[in-house]
């Protein structure tokens, strides 16, 4: 290990931002907070991107590690103990002044603080806690803070962090417990899920006291709630209200419906009871016992401890709320052998059981030579990462369920079509859809129509019948949608609603992939229908 004494702040910044760059989630969204007299900073609910680095990723926060020293030896990680890299550690003052001075110049939206494990998880968490406290109380920073919780640290330390941070995240690292055992032998699933559960419970409690200011719910929750237990007719009624802007009425409509199992303890303890689900998840995965099963399974070593309530209300309550921007997690894709089917199910479960705001995926990059790590010929699996993000959007904003997107028989996403197109081509019996009458959720299932354009359609058609040229102006991607919709009973062109025909037509349109995928030497565009067996089996 190379330890360099007396580094300049510039050298430290260079090392500790370089070491932090593999963390995904540079988002600064989730909480809107006005500026305060005597302090500097505010937060904007939508988040703000301040710059874009040479890899095209957004820079919103000062993303750094507190230290890149680490007692763990996770095989995929550049900072693992056995690597021979220069090591350094910030002082709390250095982190604070960097954050403040960058923030004043509008370089950043706030701080993203992660860390290697120095000495013990508790020791590290305490250092970070001290830093955040200093930043909030001595430097009076009122901007955005995203902080990693370190698995294995005491609940008390994690709670302290939660009172200073806006968002917290605990890295799931790998999609399954087996993967974790293989590549991160010092970590275990239980230690990772415990703080996630603790933070979730804290947010819940904070919300009960502060209302939405204490921490609002994620998109997944809102989408599910809108759809929950409702007939199309009911949805349609609400839909109409929602999109002409009668938010109060819709709230009344929603709230007047009896809700099932809203009880807090009930919800956090149920889960994985679905047989289908539990099969794809490994035994270690089945941590939450269904309420009936608690007594018989209580000895399971992986059973998560039910979190204690927040204990520091007296000290901190009333400032900002507890983790008001919610929590997220991230996992590495392609380092271990999970299928997309498994990953999407884990993602869905994380939204359902842990109320996460976001689940981030990071395409595996081989930074270490290690026999346990796969060698991926095409570089980082960026297209796969992209498909998973598309699926994540379908779960959170479109009301799709994981089981609709993939099946055990077709466990991976089609390289040629995005998951929504793929779904639509497989469900042609539900099309075409009449744009002038179909309800919001039906419109949302049409390729080329998203939440925004669907909302606009629902509004605009009350004023006048919509034609294809109007749809274009509204933002519908017609070259995709035209196979699936009618306007006043007519299709845009004579077309067959038939799987082979549409598949062939859609293959002609080059999907507009984000440039981060098309640039990196990915052979996606050059593949043809015939030399790719995956196409035939998946499409």
């Amino acid at each position, binding site marked *: 290990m190379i330890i360099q004494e007396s580094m300049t702040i*510039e050298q430290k910044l*260079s*090392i500790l*931002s370089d070491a932090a760059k593999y963390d995904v989630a540079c988002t600064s969204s989730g909480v809107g907070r*006005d500026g305060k007299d*005597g302090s500097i900073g505010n937060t904007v609910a939508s988040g703000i991107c301040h710059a*874009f680095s*040479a890899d095209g990723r957004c820079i919103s926060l000062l993303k750094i590690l507190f230290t890149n020293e680490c007692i763990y030896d996770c095989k995929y990680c550049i900072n693992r103990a056995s690597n021979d890299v220069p090591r350094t550690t910030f002082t709390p003052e250095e982190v604070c002044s960097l954050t403040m001075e960058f923030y004043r110049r509008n370089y950043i939206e706030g701080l993203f603080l992660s860390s290697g494990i120095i000495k013990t998880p508790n020791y590290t968490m305490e250092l970070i806690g001290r830093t955040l406290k200093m930043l909030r109380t001595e430097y009076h920073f009122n901007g955005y803070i995203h902080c990693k919780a370190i698995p294995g640290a005491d609940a008390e330390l994690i709670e302290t962090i939660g009172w200073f941070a806006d968002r917290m995240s605990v890295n799931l690292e790998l999609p399954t417990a087996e993967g974790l055992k293989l590549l991160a032998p010092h970590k275990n699933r239980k230690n990772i899920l415990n703080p996630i559960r603790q933070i979730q419970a804290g947010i819940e409690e904070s919300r009960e006291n502060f209302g939405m200011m204490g921490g609002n719910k994620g998109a997944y929750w809102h989408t599910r709630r809108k759809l929950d237990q409702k007939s199309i007719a009911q949805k349609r009624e609400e839909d109409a209200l929602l999109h002409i802007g009668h938010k109060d009425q819709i709230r009344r409509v929603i709230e007047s419906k009896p809700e099932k199992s809203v009880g807090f303890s009930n919800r956090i303890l149920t889960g994985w009871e679905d047989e289908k689900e539990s099969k794809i998840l490994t035994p270690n995965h089945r941590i939450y016992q269904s309420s009936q099963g608690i007594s018989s399974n209580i000895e399971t070593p992986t059973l998560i401890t039910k979190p204690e309530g927040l204990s520091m209300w007296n000290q901190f309550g009333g400032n900002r709320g507890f983790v008001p921007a919610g929590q997220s997690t991230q996992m590495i894709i392609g380092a271990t052998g999970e299928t997309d089917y498994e990953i999407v199910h884990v993602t869905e479960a994380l939204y359902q059981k842990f109320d996460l705001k976001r689940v981030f995926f990071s395409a595996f990059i081989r930074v270490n030579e290690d026999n346990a790590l796969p060698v991926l010929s095409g570089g980082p699996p960026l297209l796969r990462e992209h498909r998973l993000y598309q699926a994540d959007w379908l779960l959170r904003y479109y009301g799709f369920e994981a089981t609709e997107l993939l099946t055990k028989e077709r466990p991976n996403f089609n390289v040629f079509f995005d998951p929504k197109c793929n779904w639509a081509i497989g469900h042609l019996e539900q099309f075409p859809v009449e744009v002038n009458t179909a309800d919001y959720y039906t419109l949302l299932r049409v390729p080329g129509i998203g939440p925004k354009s669907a909302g606009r359609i629902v509004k605009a058609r009350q*004023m006048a019948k919509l034609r294809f040229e109007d749809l274009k102006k509204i933002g519908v991607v017609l070259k995709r949608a035209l196979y699936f919709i009618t306007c006043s009973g007519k299709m845009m062109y004579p077309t067959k609603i038939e799987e082979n025909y549409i598949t062939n037509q859609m293959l002609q349109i080059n999907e507009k992939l984000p*440039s981060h995928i098309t640039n990196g030497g990915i052979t996606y565009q050059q593949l043809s229908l015939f030399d790719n067996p995956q196409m035939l089996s998946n499409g």
Partner: protein
Amino acid sequence: MKEKRIYQCEDSLEGIFSAVYIAWASRYGHDNIELEVLGMEEEYNLRLFSEYIMVESNPENASKVANSIKKKISAHAYQMVAKAALSNDKRKANAIYHFLVRGFAYGAKVEDHLSDPYVQIIFELNRNVGNDAHLYTGFVRFTELDNGILFAKIEPKNNVLEIITPHFADRLSKENFMILDVKRKIATIHRSYSTWILTTISDEELNTLLTVTEKKEKYEKLWKTFFESIAIKERENKVCQRNHVAMHYRKYMTEFMEDKEDKVDKEDKVDKEDKEDRVDKEDRVVKEDKVVIEVKIENEGK
């Protein structure tokens, strides 16, 4: 056929509203009326069979229009119109007039009438100006002057200065700061724990301001260090980067500004990117030219 009447006005919300007032009061028939903002055309051609009327800005008339929009359409519609007026699109004055014609007929629902061409334009300009303003809340870069004042320069396509300033006034309430729109020669000035003002800048003042900031700062260097090291080499992708932050935003962004010492090795790269960007623009210009020519031919045919 009645002759067209084209009302010309100043490039400001007040100017446009003043023209709306006069045009409306003329009772000449909405279909025969067009509005245009002076000074937005690069090459100006007078059209045949049209009567041009210059409308002087009149605060009283403008505020009458503003009030009736708020009262008879909606506060939100007023915001939409106000935002559209900050656009650099020359269709804006005419679109605002005809949007208001529909607004006074339909009321608040007019916003949803997305199959109407004028509503579409207002909608489009709104989104455009709104997006631009949002990006600038991220892309503005302050430098600290010797006296502690934070100073930023921008050259936005749309006139977003007054939209973004409240954001900074809230965020940096204890700072003294100034944001200067170099092209439009206007600036907003915020005093610590006080309000902000919008002011015009004389040429003389502008020259002083443009020379005052050439100072190398410690934190600018640190920011550049961070900006370089945070990128993942294996995922490098300049195209993607340019899609997110187009070249015209970069002029005053610290991380894209050249250091004198490392200018030489970076020059090639930037040149190339610049060229690509220029090619994009030229393409667009050529396309627009074609449209103009086509329109001319059509007109001649008639």
